[in-house]
């Protein structure tokens, strides 16, 4: 194995600090998070946003200052100023997070849950921090035992969901997982797994609530289950009026142990007999099913509030009977009378995630924070009762967890001027003309679902969804920086593409654009004309599900490439090529040995014969390939393959990893391949979990640029799911690449393309050694594992990081991470 494969390029200044090596050249590689920290659109429309989807929230007992947020794709975030500014918790490496809660008796002890992270030795599922979120561990017992789940893949690819801490005894912590309910009775130190329906194997428990002295109510794939004995035995409804199977949220009345509320799918249920029946329902005032939730909040006397969120946030008034007891009328007013909505019209973004209440009081606690597709919003009303009619405001510095559907850029002269555009899942479209600045100025021109973007030096194109009347996705032409302009005057036939990671719009010359619609691929020679004249190319042979358009030139001949199907790049599709701009041509398939199920791909802008792709159709799984002759022959990029799996740390293809929204249906690692249009030697690639990679020799050798393992300790950012790239060259030998991600915002990575940089490598990797052998790595040190000890023949000075041993079956397994700087190899 080439030692380069184990190397990581990193921000040298940070490395020097970490390793005590002050002699390294500065600025060899720099990584900067440059995405917007506020939405300029928010004051007029809160459905413009810069936060990205946030799911669960947590408060800290006794203070309203410290808050936690679990984002959909961008990891955990924390605020220590009552939600005004948010910082990423780099020590929590799994990025697709679901819930977070804080021990009410110890503010340093924090619990978080996440979806599968692609690792062979997964860190996802249940995570515990004992230092207020700085570092996180996954206790060994937090993984389910073998042969416990309804399929082994659930154990191998763990995910965890709702967290509940027993308010009467914080030692007891309960977590719903994709393999039943995990229970800890020692504040997260050790865990055991319980299956409420042991006859059929453990499966999804999506939410759990602890109340009234330790009663457990949960919901998930087995519907609702209740235990009053700590999880030893369970009861459920036996008749027809039961909870369906699926993703859910559950809450209990603060007064009556037998009154429960739940939302499953989009339907709101109430049980007044401890879950024996779920007869009462409330009409969902704004159904969509993104991730609906229910929560209760104690008010004066026998009153309490039922908070419900789906598209919008509502508050229902509930009343406990004078003589509490099972049955009776439903406890809350009909949803037609609920107060609200408290989202868009109250300063907050639609598509709600969670709500958090002031922990300093048990009654009439003010809502202090809520989450949604737009991130988090704090309540400007801080005193009861006014606070129960919240007026939300976006933070001064939001989480940066936006999910880019697309990114585009235009090169400008000078290091600061640079046009960059991106469209986001439910956070609208953003543009800037100073992307090279330390803090770019972003304009959030339009809200909601921003899909494709494309640009030239005089304009920017963006597609926006969803309009209720007529065409749901529309194309806008704006000035540079995404200002002004308006909707295009004439559309090509068919509907514009949306909700796809791969491009549907590209420019192929001055004023010339190609647009994919549901009817095919269309070109215009003048996007500024009125009307715009569109012509379809190759109508008779057009791929039925075209997406992912790429443009290349050979001399004066333009060639277009599209994929057919697999439009997120994570499912295979065939690749097609079209020569010229006349409408009468023919699409022809580009194959790999007569086959080829390509995931992500790119074509060299200046050489249509150079194509790089992930091939997802091979018998042994995904592999990275490249051709220099238009597909006649392909070369396997074995170094890149190795990096895509972190040299074995990550699965190339997951089976139950998070794909989009809450779909846990698996994904392959490759998320991006991109040729640098200005330098044929430079190629960038990325993985869902394993980081961002670059080659500066045309694809022969590859380097890991980011740190997917321990970004908190290395100081090198982890950039997951980079899906879009834009290159810039304003300094000699410096490559600057802007990266757009699915859920971790926008980044700028700069590195020098010099021979020297190849000689400076930060080695940082994870090795595993059992007591049955040894391995070589980490600066050629030979490592061995003895009972309870990891040893290096170069001594401890040759490495940094940590080592840990634990028993694995009958063997001791030594897992350690190490890093060092070497000048030459």
């Amino acid at each position, binding site marked *: 194995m080439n030692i380069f494969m184990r190397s990581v390029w990193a921000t040298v200044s940070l490395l020097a600090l970490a390793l005590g090596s002050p002699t390294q050249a500065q600025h060899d590689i720099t990584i900067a998070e440059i995405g917007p920290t506020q939405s300029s659109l928010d004051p007029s429309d809160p459905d413009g946003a810069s936060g990205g989807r946030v799911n669960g929230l947590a408060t800290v007992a006794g203070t309203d200052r410290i808050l936690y947020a679990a984002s959909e794709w961008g990891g955990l975030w924390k605020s220590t100023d009552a939600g005004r500014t948010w910082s990423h918790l780099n020590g929590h490496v799994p990025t697709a997070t679901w819930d977070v809660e804080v021990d009410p008796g110890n503010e340093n002890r924090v619990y978080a849950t996440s979806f599968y992270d692609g690792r062979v030795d997964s860190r996802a599922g249940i995570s515990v921090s004992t230092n207020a979120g700085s570092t996180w561990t996954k206790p060994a017992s937090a993984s389910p035992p073998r042969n416990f789940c309804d399929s082994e893949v659930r154990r191998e690819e763990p995910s965890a969901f709702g967290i509940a801490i027993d308010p009467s005894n914080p030692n007891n912590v309960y977590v719903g997982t994709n393999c039943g309910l995990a229970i800890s009775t020692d504040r997260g130190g050790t865990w055991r797994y319980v299956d409420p329906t042991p006859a059929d194997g453990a499966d999804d428990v999506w939410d759990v609530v602890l109340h009234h002295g330790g009663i457990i109510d949960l919901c998930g794939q087995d519907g609702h289950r209740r235990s009053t004995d700590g999880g030893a035995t369970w009861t459920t409804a036996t008749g027809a009026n039961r909870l369906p199977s699926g993703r859910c949220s559950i809450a209990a009345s603060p007064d009556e142990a037998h009154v429960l509320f739940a939302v499953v799918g989009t339907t709101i249920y109430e049980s007044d007999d401890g879950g024996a029946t779920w007869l009462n329902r409330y009409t969902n005032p704004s159904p969509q099913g993104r*991730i609906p939730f229910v929560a209760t909040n104690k008010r004066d006397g026998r009153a309490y509030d039922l908070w419900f969120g789906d598209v919008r946030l509502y508050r229902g008034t509930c009343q406990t009977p004078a003589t509490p007891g099972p049955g009776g009328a439903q406890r809350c007013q009909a949803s037609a009378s609920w107060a609200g909505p408290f989202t868009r019209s109250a300063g907050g973004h639609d598509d709600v995630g969670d709500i958090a209440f002031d922990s300093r009081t048990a009654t009439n606690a003010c809502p202090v924070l809520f989450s949604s597709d737009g991130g988090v919003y704090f309540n400007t009303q801080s005193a009861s009762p006014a606070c129960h009619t919240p007026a939300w405001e976006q933070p001064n510095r939001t989480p940066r967890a936006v999910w880019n559907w697309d990114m585009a850029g235009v090169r400008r002269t000078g290091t600061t001027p640079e046009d960059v555009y991106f469209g986001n899942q439910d956070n609208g479209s953003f543009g800037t003309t100073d992307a090279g600045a330390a803090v770019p100025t972003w304009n959030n021109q339009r*809200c909601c679902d921003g899909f494709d973007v494309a640009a030239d030096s005089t304009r920017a194109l963006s597609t926006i969804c969803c309009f209720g009347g007529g065409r749901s996705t529309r194309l806008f032409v704006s000035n540079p920086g995404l200002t002004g302009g308006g909707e295009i005057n004439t559309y090509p036939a068919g509907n514009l593409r949306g909700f796809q990671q791969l491009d549907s719009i590209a420019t192929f010359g001055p004023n010339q654009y190609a647009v994919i619609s549901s009817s095919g691929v269309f070109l215009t020679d003048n996007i500024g004309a009125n009307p715009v004249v569109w012509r379809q190319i190759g109508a008779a042979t057009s791929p039925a599900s075209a997406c992912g358009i790429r443009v290349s030139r050979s001399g004066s001949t333009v060639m277009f490439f599209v994929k057919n199907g697999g439009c997120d790049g994570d499912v295979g599709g065939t690749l097609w090529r079209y020569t010229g701009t006349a409408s009468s041509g023919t699409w022809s398939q580009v194959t790999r040995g007569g086959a080829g199920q390509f995931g992500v791909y790119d074509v060299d802008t200046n050489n249509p014969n150079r194509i790089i792709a992930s091939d997802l159709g091979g018998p042994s799984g995904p592999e990275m390939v490249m051709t220099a002759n238009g597909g006649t022959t392909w070369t396997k990029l074995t170094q890149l393959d190795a990096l895509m799996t972190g040299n074995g740390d990550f699965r190339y293809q997951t089976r139950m990893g998070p794909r989009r929204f809450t779909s846990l249906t698996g994904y392959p690692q490759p998320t991006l391949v991109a040729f640098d249009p200005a330098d044929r030697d430079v190629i960038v690639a990325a993985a869902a979990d394993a980081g961002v990679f670059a080659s500066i020799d045309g694809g022969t050798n590859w380097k890991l640029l980011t740190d997917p393992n321990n970004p908190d300790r290395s100081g090198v950012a982890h950039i997951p799911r980079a899906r879009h790239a834009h290159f810039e060259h304003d300094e000699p030998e410096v490559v600057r690449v802007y990266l757009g991600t699915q859920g971790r915002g926008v980044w700028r990575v700069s590195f020098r393309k010099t021979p020297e940089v190849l000689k400076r490598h930060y080695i940082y990797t994870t090795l595993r050694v059992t007591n049955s052998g040894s391995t070589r790595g980490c600066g050629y040190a030979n490592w061995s594992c003895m009972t309870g000890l990891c040893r290096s023949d170069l001594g401890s000075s040759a490495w940094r990081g940590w080592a840990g041993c634990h028993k694995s079956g009958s063997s001791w397994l030594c897992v350690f991470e190490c890093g060092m700087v070497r000048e030459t190899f």
Partner: protein
Amino acid sequence: MTDHPKTIAGVALAATCVLVASAVIAQDNEGPGPFTLQCEVYCSSEKLRTANARLSWADPRMRLIREANSLDAADRDLGEEIETTVFKDGFEENLYASFPTKLEARELAPRLAPETADANLRAYQLLLTGVSRPAIEGRSIEALLGGSPQDVETSAVIEGLEPGLTYYWRVRVQMPDGVEISQSVACVAPVCPADLQEGDAQ
């Protein structure tokens, strides 16, 4: 609005469908063992916020053709129905809805099993929007039965799944020699968000 059904069925189906159990039929004239049913779920490209399921299974008429060695055997009305439940033990507890899959069935809402208490359950507000069967006319028996499994596959599209729910599916066919019930498969209805512009109806 999001995906179309995946063209690479093996990939998508492996990811989205879970084999639940083999159906056991307590009937005197029980037919052959359970047949295979596959489901895939996707967001409609035509209707906002609409989740669909596509079910596919081997056309049961093929067995009749094979046994009779005659294409005329395909003319028999087999009384085929798709059954679905959102409860894990819903088939055992008769908490399911069913759709007849006659060729003329279009935009057909399900009927509910007698034990299903609430016909208004959102989960069952579904429509069978299309059934596609293998073409028989003009083909020889050899070509028909010697083709790929996809060539002799029946498929149906069910529209309007409640997002986030787990739907369990099976197909029941009244064959001349008894009832055949497919294996049961589970698919999670996808979320199909569409974030509407200000002023548009939610």
